[in-house]
């Protein structure tokens, strides 16, 4: 997948995760891996620039909270703007996915 598409889909997936609950970075990577049956194993460094740029856009907000272990963690929270952005990204993704299916599906029926 090219870099642009990767960033687009990753930010959509991160926003989707935050729609359910506030999370910190490492938790997001783990949850993403679990939910996708280990298909989406992000290179961990790529997560933070995406999260920080979403924060700059106002799509997410962050706050610090002390974990049970005593370690301070930075949690991310989906904002109203982020929720709107998620809906837009989901719509774009659905259009893209349908187009890909049509092309792949059409090619197969032609082969038969």
């Amino acid at each position, binding site marked *: 997948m090219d870099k642009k598409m990767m960033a687009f889909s990753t930010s959509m997936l991160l926003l989707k995760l935050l729609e359910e609950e506030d999370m910190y970075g490492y938790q997001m990577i783990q949850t993403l891996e679990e939910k996708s049956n280990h298909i989406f194993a992000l290179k961990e460094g790529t997560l933070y*620039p995406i999260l*920080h740029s979403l924060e*700059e856009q106002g799509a997410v907000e962050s706050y610090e909270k002390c974990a049970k272990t005593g370690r301070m963690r930075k949690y991310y929270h989906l904002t109203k703007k982020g929720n709107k952005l998620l809906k837009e990204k989901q719509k774009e993704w659905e259009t893209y996915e349908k187009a890909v299916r049509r092309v792949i599906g059409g090619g197969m029926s032609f082969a038969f």
Partner: protein
Amino acid sequence: MRSDVHKVLNHFLEEVDEQIGYQPMHAAINEELRAHIEDKAHVYMEYGVEEEEAYEKAVRDMGDASALGIEMHEAHHLRTAKPLLLLLLILIVLGMLGNLVVRGFSVGELFYNGYFIWGFFVLFLTMMYGYPCLLKYAGKLTLLFLIMSAFFVVSRMVARSMGVNHLPFDMSVIYSPSTFFGILQLAVPTVAILLYRRRQKGLGALLLLTGLQFLFIWFSRYAFLLDYACIPFMTVLFTSFGLELYVVEKKYLNIEKKKGILVAAASFLVVFCVWSFGEGERLSHNLELFLHPETQADNAWMDGYNNVLIRHLLGRAEWFGEVDLSEEEMIRYGTSQWYYEDGPGEWDVNGRSLEHHITYRMQFLEEPKLSDILPQHFLNNYRIAWWILKYGWIPGISLTLLLIVAYGILLMTAFRIRNRLGSLTALAGSLALGIQFLFYLMGNFGYQFGMFGNLPFVSEGLVSITGSALMAGLVLSAYRFDTVVTEKE
């Protein structure tokens, strides 16, 4: 954690930091990345991997440190609101040139108008360092502003009780009524920061700004500055109300939206009523001055007369070029005869008859010019009207539109700031300047309310341009540090 483990982790973080331009941001980014790597290393250790290897693996999983640093730098760098800075610079240049064109380009005038350059210097410095300093010292600054204001009030009270104008220690040369009001207006953004930091307290936090407004009323009443206080107080009142509505609308406070709006509106009304109490005569005078200036125009020194004159002259302005007046007309405007002899005006002043006034004024009208027939402080108080009368409606309206665009961009910049505290601080600055501009604009079309204020950046003195530069500088500074200052700071 062992020292070699420290070494691996620190080396990775240092490499990330090398790519991030804004140094104060390093600590927050390091903390987040460090927590992530430690979490991951602990997972490896739970699977039996040795500590050193676990950390090495966790660091490796993060990918290339420099690439990560470059991407983090993209998300966190200082920025400049260039169009806004440029517009403010244009306004300052217009203000300074406007003075020099009328008064002449002499060395003395250049030196006298040096405060415009000082204003730009203050604006620039505030943009560079203002917002982080304000966040750091908001509480102390609020206290300092209140102590300085209280000191001013007490010294005025003592002086008055002793029957003198000033006490030797009241520093009135540097601490004029304009400074006093400027400092109280500067307290609005600092109190807004305190409000935000106490947002969990809900209504209690919202009422902090109300408290400041009561102090303003109390201070200005006991400093015997009620006439001067009108526009500065209205500025503080409307700015505070705007900020209260903003924090409620954005749900920054721990209260319901409806309840918050009701409390903000009730607080506005209560403050306004308290201010009006005992000031009924002064307020009705200001309202008459605004709506029916002819009732407040007993002689040519009254603000009501200025309103009447400006409204009348604007009606004669050209689309382009100076208003077309014959020498005879100039003289009759300059002596006020156009209103008190040819018009409906009735001269009524003790000690100086209209004839006496005409004789006095004639000495300045040998070769009458437009500047001779306008109100005395036309360059300070009627800069927009002066442009319309001197250069025509099109240049005058162009100046007005430029000002509207500048203040519009100032406000939009505040709304564009992502950081809540930054946005609130910038909103305080832009609202205060925008409200002053609106009052000034009304006055320039003959609808003066209260004593004349300033047109920020264009028509100012040393004190007021310093205050305006600090306020606008805070807007620029909050925007500049938006992506690098976190809320905790």
